[in-house]
């Protein structure tokens, strides 16, 4: 296990290193300058600004500086907001993003498990059919469309919840629902397939034969065994949440990381883009590593084969 872990951590660091390098060189290739009114500035003014941000050094020097700083969690200062440290800028925005992200994830996964198992137990009935239609809809309707529709009908027409902005639990509800759609659909379809498989296996027959109640079978045997593989889709779900948060935060004007990322893209704020990219990558790599470890712990079959690898 320790050797496996060490290997995984090594790949994690390698991945992050590669992402950082790719990001850096893509940024250098980018057209446009971070200076808003370059035409109006004199040569020496431009020179001073470039020196201030270290843009006058040769590219390899900038690369080394950048990598050393990035390893310390320092991504320089934002071009857009002068004298704002990128790490500070991002740090102050993690809270809202994490709140709606985690709420959306939990909501989607829990609802997905419930719907998925109900439709597996009642397979080929109208309940199953309805659940199937809802999950296909959740998979097919982009989160930004859902977000706008929710905002308009529930926020503006019915006035049940705040239309936009950040403050208090009420303002997190609609964004969380918009984010939850995709994890819900994925989880529900996944759990259904797994559950149908499990319900057809011999030990379920045995449990039935021994006279166990239906709920007991579902809870003790079927649900537990079908939820184990669900751990493997947590990574892709996290990606879906990240992707969704970029638009959902914009629509609901939530001061989060996704909103900042889109803003930075539109204003050529390279240091912030790099910082957010590294944050997203780091999070995802970490989630993938954790799910692998957890999967190994909760499923003994994987653990045994894992030793050989």
């Amino acid at each position, binding site marked *: 296990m320790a050797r496996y872990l060490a290997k995984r951590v090594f790949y994690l660091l390698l991945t992050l290193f590669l992402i950082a390098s790719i990001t850096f060189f893509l940024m250098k290739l980018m057209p446009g300058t971070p200076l808003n009114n370059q035409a109006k500035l004199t040569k020496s003014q431009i020179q001073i600004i470039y020196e201030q941000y270290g843009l006058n050094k040769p590219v390899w020097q900038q690369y080394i500086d950048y990598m050393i700083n990035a390893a310390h969690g320092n991504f320089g200062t934002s071009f857009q907001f002068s004298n704002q440290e990128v790490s500070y800028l991002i740090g102050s925005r993690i809270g809202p993003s994490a709140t709606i992200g985690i709420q959306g994830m939990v909501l989607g996964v829990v609802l997905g498990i419930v719907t998925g198992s109900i439709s597996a137990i009642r397979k080929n009935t109208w309940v199953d059919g309805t659940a199937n239609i809802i999950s296909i809809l959740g998979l*097919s309707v982009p989160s930004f469309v859902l977000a*706008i529709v929710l905002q*308009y009908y529930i926020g503006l027409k019915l006035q049940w919840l705040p239309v936009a902005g950040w403050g208090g639990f009420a303002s997190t509800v609609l964004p969380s629902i918009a984010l939850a759609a995709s994890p819900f659909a994925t989880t529900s379809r996944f759990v259904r397939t797994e559950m149908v498989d499990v319900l057809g296996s011999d030990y379920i027959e045995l449990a039935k034969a021994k006279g166990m109640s239906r709920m007991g079978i579902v809870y003790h045997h079927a649900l537990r065994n079908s939820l184990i593989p669900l751990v493997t889709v947590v990574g892709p779900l996290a990606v879906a949440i990240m992707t969704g948060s970029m638009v959902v935060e914009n629509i609901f004007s939530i001061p989060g990381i996704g909103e900042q990322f*889109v803003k930075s893209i539109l204003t050529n704020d390279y240091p912030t883009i790099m910082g957010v990219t590294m944050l997203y990558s780091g999070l995802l790599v970490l989630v993938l590593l954790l799910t692998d470890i957890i999967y190994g712990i909760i499923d003994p079959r994987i653990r045994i084969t894992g030793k050989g690898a």
Partner: protein
Amino acid sequence: MEEKVKIPKDAFQPVSKEDRLDDEKITAPSRTFLQDAWRRLKENKAAFISMWILIIVAIFAFTSPITAPNPNNSNPDYANLPAKIPGVSINGFNGTIVQGGERVDAYKANNVPAGKYFYFGTDYLGRSLGQRILHGTMISLLIGVFATLIDLLIGVGYGIFSAWKGGKVDIFMQRIIEIMSSVPNIVIMVLLLLVFKNGGILPIVLAIAINEWTTMARLTRAQTLQLKNQEYILAAQSLGESPWKISIKHLLPNLSSVIIIQTMFTIPTAIFFEAFLSYIGIGIQAPTASLGTLINDGQRNFQFLPFQMWYPAIVLAIIMIAFNVLADGLRDAFDPRTARR
């Protein structure tokens, strides 16, 4: 004592050959793998309907250069007109709109000539929304299909090569995939698009394809590893067939079901990413329409003219649903074991 059963000789009659000739004949026609899958797909009503919906949408979209030649023709006089269809008097499709609590004929108010109809209304620049949706659907489908094709070429090639070579090459290539797939692809897509800004459709197609091929490569590799040890591959090898020919003639046909299913799942993903990128403003650039840009444009006026976002959003949703249902159906058709029982 044993009693002998006496059977008269005429109790038996020789069978004439003609009578029994058909006994060994197989009555049902033998079906190939594809025919079998097709038959199963036809039984799946939802998937079959989805397939026809997609065909119809594709026909409408790809004839749009002829049927809707001017998606970018703006006319400020006709801005923000609601839908008007000749002979239909349902509110919402008769050219009327609620303004200040009253329903008024927007066409009359804007002095639109009597014979002029916009079946889907117009946008804020007076461009025909119907024409733009047709055109946008075409662009979205094109991007989805092209990105998937590139994805397929890279993924299948990579997967077969990796599995066929085996050993260290395989391990190395799998490590690359591992690293690639733990990169959050939306971020990389955005960065790539920023570098190749204003490059038209091609950068978008490439950015989407580059980030989606790993799944295809993984599936192809897993399947090829199984096929590699089959007797017919060994036979082909011992007959001196080159690996290149073996992969085209023997591996590809046997991989086809995996490839087709994965392709059908990738196309809606690609369409989604295009819409997403266009929506946040770095995909398709104005004035070209795509479903993403249309939704983005419509969203600004959603409060007063909701139809401007509803129509493209509904078209996008229909396409995505149809692809997903069809992909589900195809998976069940090709592999009945995984069918929704």
